[in-house]
């Protein structure tokens, strides 16, 4: 008997954290554990409304629950923002290939995030920090529109004091109390970034426009296409390579991605839209 891949398991929302006015993190506890590798995604169902794909933002080591950080932008996400603790949702997955942690070992890992794009990267950062000794260095460059739009504010403070991690943050537009960097994410990708680029992997996740310019900047700095790991946001509906919505050239983002090295996808059109 072939298992039904369209059927989610029931899950409970056990906690909700308000990150920004439009972004919330939901703690989700499925009836049966749904364990994932960092970078893999799940389809989250709001009963009777529909489902949407999200990459969990929590440590993949925790197998009986996950955290999912969600911005209210569409039909499913806006309904998610209306539900409360204790609500029942559905989870199916995990899908996709995830981040190839093995490829990062012994390297200087540069993580570049924009806005809510830090969500999947947080899961990656937590996984990397668990075995920090395996990586030569872990660097995070994070940009958001304004100080208010930064996600995981408490965790960012904690990371700032973590000796295993170099983190630098910038905002496009500062507020009154902001003493940090002001400028687009690309301003943090300076020539004097101090990375041994020949022994580095860069991981980029954020809104399409940020992904595009961050990728171009990293190439300009000397990164090889195969060392750039990009999270492609496409309309991943079935999650299993059947429904046809998330095609990029000869790939489906859901099963061949959503993380792709730039060399695999750069020749295909409309990857940044």
């Amino acid at each position, binding site marked *: *008997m*072939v*298992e*039904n*891949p*369209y*059927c*989610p*398991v*029931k899950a409970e929302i056990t906690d909700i954290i308000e990150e920004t006015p439009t972004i919330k993190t939901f703690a989700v506890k499925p*009836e049966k554990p749904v364990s994932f590798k960092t970078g893999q995604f799940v389809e989250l*169902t*709001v*009963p*009777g*409304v*529909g*489902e*949407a794909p999200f990459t969990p933002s929590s440590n993949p080591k925790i197998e009986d629950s996950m955290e999912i950080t969600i911005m209210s*932008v*569409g*039909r*499913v*996400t806006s309904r998610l923002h209306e539900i409360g603790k204790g609500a*029942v*949702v*559905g989870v199916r997955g995990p899908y996709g290939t995830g981040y190839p942690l093995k490829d990062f070992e012994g390297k200087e890992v540069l993580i570049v995030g924009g806005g809510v794009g830090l969500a999947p990267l947080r899961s990656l950062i937590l996984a990397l920090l668990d075995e920090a000794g395996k990586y030569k260095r872990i660097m995070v460059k994070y940009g958001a529109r304004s100080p208010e739009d930064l996600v995981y504010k408490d965790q960012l403070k904690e990371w700032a004091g973590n000796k295993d991690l170099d983190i630098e943050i910038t905002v496009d537009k500062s507020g009154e109390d902001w003493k940090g960097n002001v400028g687009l994410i690309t301003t943090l990708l300076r020539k004097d970034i101090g990375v041994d680029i020949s022994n580095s992997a860069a991981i980029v996740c954020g*809104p*399409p426009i940020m992904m595009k310019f961050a990728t171009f900047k990293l190439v300009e700095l000397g990164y090889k296409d195969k060392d750039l790991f990009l999270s492609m*946001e*496409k*309309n991943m*509906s*079935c999650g*299993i*390579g*059947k*429904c*046809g*919505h*998330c*095609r990029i*050239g*000869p790939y489906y983002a859901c*099963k061949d991605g959503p993380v792709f090295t730039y060399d695999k996808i750069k020749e295909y*059109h*409309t*990857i940044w*839209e």
Partner: protein
Amino acid sequence: MFAYGISKEYSLYYLRKGKGASPHIVKYSDGLKDPLIGGVRPFEPLKNFFFFARERVIDGLGRPADPKAGGKPLCVLGVKNCDLAGLNILDSVFSEGDFKDPFYVSKREQNLIIAADCTHAIDTCFCHALGHEHFPQKNHDVLISELRDGYLLESVTWKGKKLLNENSDILADSGEKHIEERDHIRSISGAQVEEGIKKSEIPRQTEYKDVIKKSLESEIWEREAENCVECGGCNVACPTCHCFYLADIQKKAGGETRYKIWDSCMYKRFARVAGNANPRQHLWERLRNRFEKKFDYFPEVNGLYACTGCGRCISGCPAKIDIRRVLKDLVAEKKKAKA
């Protein structure tokens, strides 16, 4: 007699002569009315019988729907090769890979296909250009060939063999002359397919390699998209188009159901993501995407063109977008670029 026998075990569908060039698939009840065994492919694609236009896939969270629900398995009588070839694509999508679609898989196992030779061709037939014959090659259970004074039957699978055994009382042994007659009819209808290909100057599949890649920015796309009304008819009519969306519906009584429903890549929202980013904002990009999927994606991932030359999208298109013309122009453009 034969049909009645089948109808006891299967929900039987057969081809009925229509007013237009194509017959229609109709459901059997109390005998066959104007049936057509040979002829050409029907108006409706075969995929309907394996990949329903709308099918319930879950009955609620944690409650998968039963793929075998819905009574007797289905049998289609008179299936033509362009539809059988379409199953190669659908099989690769739904029956292969890490995840399989239990709804499709169970129908492929249970349903019965009685396929038949094309006894003539119509204007839009061009299966040979895609390397497919005008008579059944694979994916069928029984082959039935219309002769002058009867039918020649041949079982292909155990299901087909079982059916013929059960009907042995109405079947007689065939001989060399029957096969000769079948081959003669095949040669006449085959020549008609060739004639159509010649008349419309349709290039053969050996010339399609990278034909879209070389013409990504071609004027052909905008020209063809100009009259497109985004009805999605080409997708519905196509024996290989497999895209679907999942729709969740809240029932009054509580429980929520999820349906798998045919989708169309010609619709603007097809590739759009939350927040409205859309890699195929323009209609011509969506039209190009449809061709890319058929003539670039499938050959690259599994070595098959996802077009079987059935011609349904040609007769079904209100904007008169003709896949043969597009292919002809793309191949010509590629040759010109080389020269």
